[in-house]
């Protein structure tokens, strides 16, 4: 089952809102092991996307709410929603959840749920510095 490198079609970029792009970059690249895909500035605006090393066809955008996209009131609401953990859940697939958990925990990743077995799959939960919640899932049958 693969959805990578489909040779033309597919979702290319999905963005997250983060409070601080430098902090997000340090987290997604420095801790989770993503790579920078694009980091371009235009004045105060910064288009920043990262990619998973095994998923080059997909970019995860690390965007800050604010001008020129949002008026300040809207930006404030978005920042609050992210910080309160209200944004949609994100899922990261890993071959070995417990190993990834140990590794990321040692790097200081903030886990909200330690690895739990469910019918052969194993999942754990963590948050990025901004408050976005991730589920880290090892599919049933993998590495078993």
């Amino acid at each position, binding site marked *: 089952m693969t959805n990578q490198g489909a040779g033309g079609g597919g979702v290319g970029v999905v963005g997250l809102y983060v409070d601080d792009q430098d902090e997000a970059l340090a987290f997604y690249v420095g801790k989770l092991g993503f790579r920078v895909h694009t980091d371009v500035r235009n004045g105060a605006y910064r288009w920043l996307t990262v990619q998973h090393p095994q998923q080059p066809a997909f970019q995860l955008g690390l965007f800050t709410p604010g001008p020129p996209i949002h008026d300040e009131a809207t930006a404030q609401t978005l*920042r609050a929603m992210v*910080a*309160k953990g209200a944004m949609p859940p994100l899922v990261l697939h890993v071959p070995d959840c417990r190993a990834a958990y140990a590794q990321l925990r040692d790097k200081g990743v903030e886990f909200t749920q*330690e690895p739990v077995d469910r*019918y052969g799959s194993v999942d754990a939960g963590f*948050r990025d510095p*901004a408050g976005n919640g991730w589920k880290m899932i090892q599919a049933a049958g993998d590495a078993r």
Partner: protein
Amino acid sequence: MPTPSSLAADAQPDPGLLRRLLRAKDRMDAASHEAWSVQRLAQVSGVSSAHFARLFRQAFGIPPHRYLLTRRIEQATTLLRDTNLPITEIAFVTGWESLGTFGRTFKDITGRSPSAVRQDALSDTSSLDRVPACYLKAAQRPDLTTAVSEKRRTAATGTNQPSTTKE
């Protein structure tokens, strides 16, 4: 400039503060059976005890103590439905210090007694004693089972998140 009263009513607290309040909520979610005094929660959030409850309520629309109770009740309900644990045991593992307090609070919040909920659950299904069926049922409600599995796992290994200060 907004007046102090309009600030209290409308203004969003800054994201950094909300993020720290979320941390307290996360910690209650991960270990709702533990004692979460306002002092302990305030410490997690890095705010003063005097302000924590108000700030939490302002952010999430529910006082922290009430939020913790709802998580405990949710967990107790799951255990009543999916396990054969005695109700006394359920009261204990979901964080109450006495069966009486558990029963009273459970009924206050759900409108039914724990034994009534269990009785309904028993009459709802013919296979409660079959463990795989229980797990199947539980697997269909990921939000409800997370904390339960977490507790079982924690109880089994006696470990805890490194960031957790056990009381």
